C-alpha cells in the first residue's frame, strides 16, 4: 500500500463516522445509486497524487497533498470496531442464538452511549419457499434482533427493522452451506 493510500485510509476512517451521520437524517433516506448494490453512498473518486491506478500524470500536484477518500459503510466497518454485524439464524427460526450475545451487547452499549446514532437491521432468508412469506420471515428476524437491542436499553427510535426476504442473498447456491449463510440479519449504521 502506498504512503498516499495509507494516509487516505486513516483519513477515510475518521470521515466514515461523520459520513454515517450525514447519511442519516430521516429513517430510510438512502440515496439511490443504480450502480451501488448496497444503497450506501457512492465512493467519490478524488484525484490521487502519483496517479496510482488512475492512469493520469499528476506531476503538478504537491507531494504533501492528501486526497480524502470516503469509504462507504460496509460489513468491514464492524470488523474495524471488533463487533460482528451479521447474525445468523437456524432454518425456520428467528431466535437470536447465544453465540451472538456478545455482538448484541456490544451494539447495545455503543447505541445507548450515543443516542443520536441510528442503525437499520436488515433481515434475510434463504431461497426456499415463497417470496412474500420469506419477506415476512426476514422481517421477523430483523425484529428479533431489534428486540434484543431494545431489551438492553436501546431506544426504538434508533432502530429500523426491514427485510429483504430472499431477494438479496449473501451467497449464491442451492445447498445447505449457502442457505446457512443467507439466513441472517445485518446491522448497518445509518
Amino acid at each position: 500500500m502506498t504512503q498516499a493510500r495509507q494516509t487516505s485510509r486513516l483519513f477515510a476512517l475518521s470521515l466514515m463516522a461523520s459520513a454515517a451521520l450525514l447519511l442519516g437524517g430521516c429513517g430510510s433516506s438512502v440515496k439511490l445509486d443504480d450502480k451501488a448494490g448496497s444503497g450506501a453512498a457512492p465512493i467519490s473518486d478524488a484525484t490521487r497524487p502519483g496517479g496510482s491506478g488512475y492512469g493520469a500524470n499528476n506531476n503538478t500536484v504537491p507531494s504533501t497533498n492528501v486526497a480524502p477518500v470516503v469509504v462507504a459503510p460496509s460489513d468491514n466497518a464492524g470488523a474495524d470496531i471488533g463487533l460482528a454485524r451479521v447474525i445468523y439464524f437456524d432454518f425456520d427460526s428467528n431466535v437470536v442464538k447465544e453465540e451472538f450475545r456478545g455482538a448484541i451487547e456490544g451494539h447495545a452499549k455503543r447505541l445507548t452511549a450515543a443516542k443520536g446514532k441510528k442503525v437499520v437491521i436488515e433481515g434475510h432468508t434463504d431461497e426456499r419457499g415463497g417470496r412474500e412469506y420469506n419477506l415476512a420471515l426476514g422481517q421477523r428476524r430483523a425484529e428479533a434482533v431489534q428486540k434484543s437491542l431494545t431489551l438492553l436499553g436501546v431506544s426504538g427510535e434508533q432502530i429500523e427493522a426491514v427485510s429483504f426476504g430472499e431477494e438479496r442473498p449473501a451467497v449464491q447456491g442451492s445447498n445447505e452451506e449457502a442457505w446457512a449463510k443467507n439466513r441472517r440479519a445485518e446491522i448497518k449504521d445509518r
Partner: protein
Amino acid sequence: MQLPVSRRSALGGLFGGLALSLTLTAGGALWPLSAAHAQFRVEISGVGATQIPIAIGKFRDEARSPQPVSAIIKADLERSGLFKSLDASADRLDEVGRPPLSDWRSKGADALLAGSVTPLADGRFDIRYHLWDVLKAQDMGGLSLVVPAGDLRQAAHRIADEVYEKLTGDKGVFATRIAYVSKVGRQHTLVIADSDGEGTQAALTSAQPIISPAWSPDGRQLAYVSFEGGKAVVVVQDVSSGRRRVVAGFKGTNSAPAWSPDGRQLVVTLSRDGGSQLYVINVDGEGLRRLTQSAAIDTEATWSPDGGTVFFVSDRGGGPQIYRVPASGGSATRVTFSGSYNISPAISPDGRYMAYIGQVDGGAYRVHLMDLSGGSVKVLTDTRDDESPSFAPNSKQIIYASRAQGRDVLMTTSLDGRIKAKLTTPQADVREPVWGPQLNPSRR
C-alpha cells in the same frame, strides 16, 4: 428524480428524504426491450380431449402488413390446446365471398377462417375476418377493425378471441397482457408483454429487486414492491405515462399489494406496528385501516371478485396456511387444511376457484386448485419450484412461475392441468407473472 410521496405514507417523516433515480424515459414509461428480454420461446404440452380442426388461410395482403396476422391467430388457437389447424394457405381465401366449404369438409375441417389486411391511405390498416362452420355450411360472422400498425398484433389476438368464443363458447384471453419480473445479472425489469410473450416492453428497470406486481382491474396501472430505497415500499405506476408514486412507505417493510375489485383500494402487508399485518389503504395513500390483528405473520392478501372477502396467508396456526376474512374486518376463517405449507392464493375472476402454492410430501412446491364451493383440491403440476399463480381473465387458465433445466420460466396451465405451455427466454430469469384484464385494442 424525486418520487412523489402521498402524505400519509410519509408518516413519521421516515420517508421524506428518499431520493430515487430510476431509468425511465421522459415521455412515457414503456420502451421496447433489447433482444435479451424479447423472443419468448413457447412450448406446448398436452392437448384437450377434443381438438377442433380449423382451416386457417393467410389473410389477403397480409404480406404487405407489418404483422403475420394469420400466423398469430394460428399460434394463439394452437396454444390453447383446443384447436388443430389445417393449412389453408394454398387457397386464395379472404373474408368476401363463399369459400369451397364442402372441399374443406372432406379435408376434415370443422371451421374455416379467412380474412384480409388492407393498408389505408392514413397509414392505418383495415383488418377483417370471416368464420365459417364447415360442417353446417354456415356463416358464423366476422368483424372489421381499423387499427394503427402498432395495434395489429392486438387486433389479430382479438380476432383469435372471437374465433375461440364462437367455437368453444368461452371468452378468449389472447388479447390480454401479462406482467412479470425479469432478472439478468443484477438488473431487474418489470416487463409487460402480450399474452403470447411477444411485444415485451419494460415498465421499470432497477438495480434493486422488484417483486409482487399486481394489475389494477382496468389494466391501466401496476402496483409492485420496489427495494430501490434500501427497503421494501409499495409503488403504483401508471403504465402508459410512467408516472409513479409510493402508496405505502411506512417504517419497516411494505409489501404484497392487491387491488380491490373497484380499483380504489389496495390491501398491503405492513410491519409499521410490528410483525407483518394486513392493512387496507386507498390508492391515493390515504385512509389507512388495519385489517388483521394477530401476533403472527399475515400476508399475501387477495380480494374476492365480489369485493366482500380477503383471502390471505397466515402462520397463526404454526405454518403458513390460507385464511379468509371479511373485507370490512372481523375474524378470520381457515381455508386450507391439507399440507403444512400453503401460500400465494389467487381467486378466479368468476369466484369459483382458488389457485395456490402448496408444498407436497418430498418438499416440492406445486400449483394447487381448490374448488371453493366444496373445498376439493387438485394438484395441477408435477414440477418442484412453482410460484405465484395468477388466473387468466376468463378463469380458464393459470399462469405461474416455475423452474426448468435450472432456469426460472413462466408456465400456463388449463384448470384440469392437461394443457400446459412453457414460456422461456434465453438470457433472463423470469418470475412473478400476473395476467392482466381483457383489453380494448383501440385503447392501447
